[in-house]
């Protein structure tokens, strides 16, 4: 009886939290504490934003989750298994796109699959599918330098989607593209989430962006990076994505978060 309950609880935990961050510290050099005692759960299927001013360690946390950086102490578990390095269940979208300039859109999008040893015909078919899904149909054989910044980031997104990871880790994906493109991209991301059942973790310094996109916002405070507050916006995103930007809840929450963050800027 007791054992059954234990198993049930474990299963419950496994279905809810796909990523668990436990007591993570990160110290650069000897003195600079980038992250201090971070304990967090990221829920399956949710889009969680890490929000905070620069220097709060949000990208560091994301890279620790990705396995690209090692925490000084503490651990991260994905699907219950401790992270020791990058893994196929996590895919990363880079702030500066990180595309190979010598490869076409399709080859770039298929790169993750190429590294996994998927046969050429199959990986290209899958890459083409995702290139189309991110709205780049017709650009398959172009090179990165022939695309705009926004389009390049779409290739980065297609590459991350193509490996069919459970978790997409996005490091300020929209910060290097212009405002109009960013808005369109954000709307497309909302639509994409309806098709792709994935967990997203998004690092951003834009309050609007985090409120607009996230199910949960984790606010970090700078120097040392610590957990400040967790906000759960309850905004209906099923309708016209443009309407969200006029939604009073959306606007109020932006104001509220700004009031909270103001102290760190002043």
């Amino acid at each position, binding site marked *: 009886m007791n054992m059954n309950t234990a198993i049930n609880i474990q299963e419950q935990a496994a279905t809810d939290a796909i990523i668990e961050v436990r007591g993570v510290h990160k110290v650069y050099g000897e003195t600079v504490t980038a992250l201090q005692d971070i304990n967090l759960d990221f829920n399956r299927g949710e889009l969680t934003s890490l929000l905070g001013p620069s220097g709060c360690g949000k990208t560091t946390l994301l890279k620790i989750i*990705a*396995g*690209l950086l090692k925490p000084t102490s503490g651990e991260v578990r994905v699907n219950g298994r401790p992270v020791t390095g*990058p*893994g*196929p269940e*996590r*895919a*990363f979208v*880079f*702030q*500066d796109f*990180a*595309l*190979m*300039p*010598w490869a076409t859109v399709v080859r770039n999008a298929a*790169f*993750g699959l190429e*590294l*996994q040893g998927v046969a050429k015909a199959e990986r290209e078919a899958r890459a083409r599918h995702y290139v189309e899904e991110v709205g780049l149909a017709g650009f398959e054989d172009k*090179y*990165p*330098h022939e695309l705009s910044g926004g389009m*390049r980031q779409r290739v980065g997104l297609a*590459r991350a989607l193509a*490996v069919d990871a459970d978790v997409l880790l996005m490091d300020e994906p929209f910060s290097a593209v212009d405002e109009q493109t960013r808005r369109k991209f954000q709307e497309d991301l909302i639509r994409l989430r309806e098709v792709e059942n994935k967990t997203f973790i998004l690092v951003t310094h834009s309050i609007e962006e985090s409120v607009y996109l996230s199910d949960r916002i984790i606010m970090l405070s700078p120097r040392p990076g610590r957990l400040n507050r967790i906000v759960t916006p309850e905004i209906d995103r099923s309708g016209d994505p443009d309407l969200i930007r006029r939604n009073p809840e959306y606007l109020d929450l932006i104001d509220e978060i700004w009031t909270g963050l103001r102290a760190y800027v002043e």
Partner: protein
Amino acid sequence: MELYGFKVPRFTALLFWAALWEFVGQFELLLLFPPLSEVLMALPDVLTTPSFGEAARLTVASYLGGLTLAIVIGVGLGMLMGLVKAADNLLNMWVNIFLSAPLSALVPVIMILFGMGMPTVVVTVFMFAVWIIALDTRAGVLHVSPSLMEMSRSFGASRVARFRIILWSAMPEILAGVRLGVIRGVKGVVIGQLLVSIIGVGALFSLYSQNFLMAHFWALILILFAFALTLADLIARLETRIEYYAGARA
């Protein structure tokens, strides 16, 4: 090019200097300076002599041999210096010294080591070309975008796959180095043969100058210049294609 408001094609400049050469040459002021027309007339003469054929074969063979060696070892050395800090500390100063040192002074030493034949010329070409290739490759490797490396790691790239990314990322710099190496290599092959002076075009140069065949002498120089510039231009073309792909690197 514009001259007094008129558009003139760029090769007009070349025509101007050619005309000047012809004009000055006609005065027969110096035995060293035959008029251009005489040099041009000597061209077919030089090209058809059997000794030119033999010299050209030897020159091209030792040039290509030395250059291939320089590219393989230069790229390898540059990669090593770019990737391994210790190797860089050990080698960087020496590579820079050899890059700017007057290598011609070393040719006699090379001659003692490798004899009065083709190996000396091959080694001279190698010595002239290898350092710039190594340094440019090193620069290319050091400039590989860190986020591209992080990307390949995050998607689980093996060592070999990461090495391939580094090689491709550094390709624009490597090719720039190879282009400079190609030009320096021509210097190497000529200087090497001149100093050995009993083989290849070096022997021809000695032959022509000792017999006061100045028209032939200049014709041979024109041929060598054309050879070097054509090669450099071929590499430059390949380079613009790669640069084009590298345009999005930043």
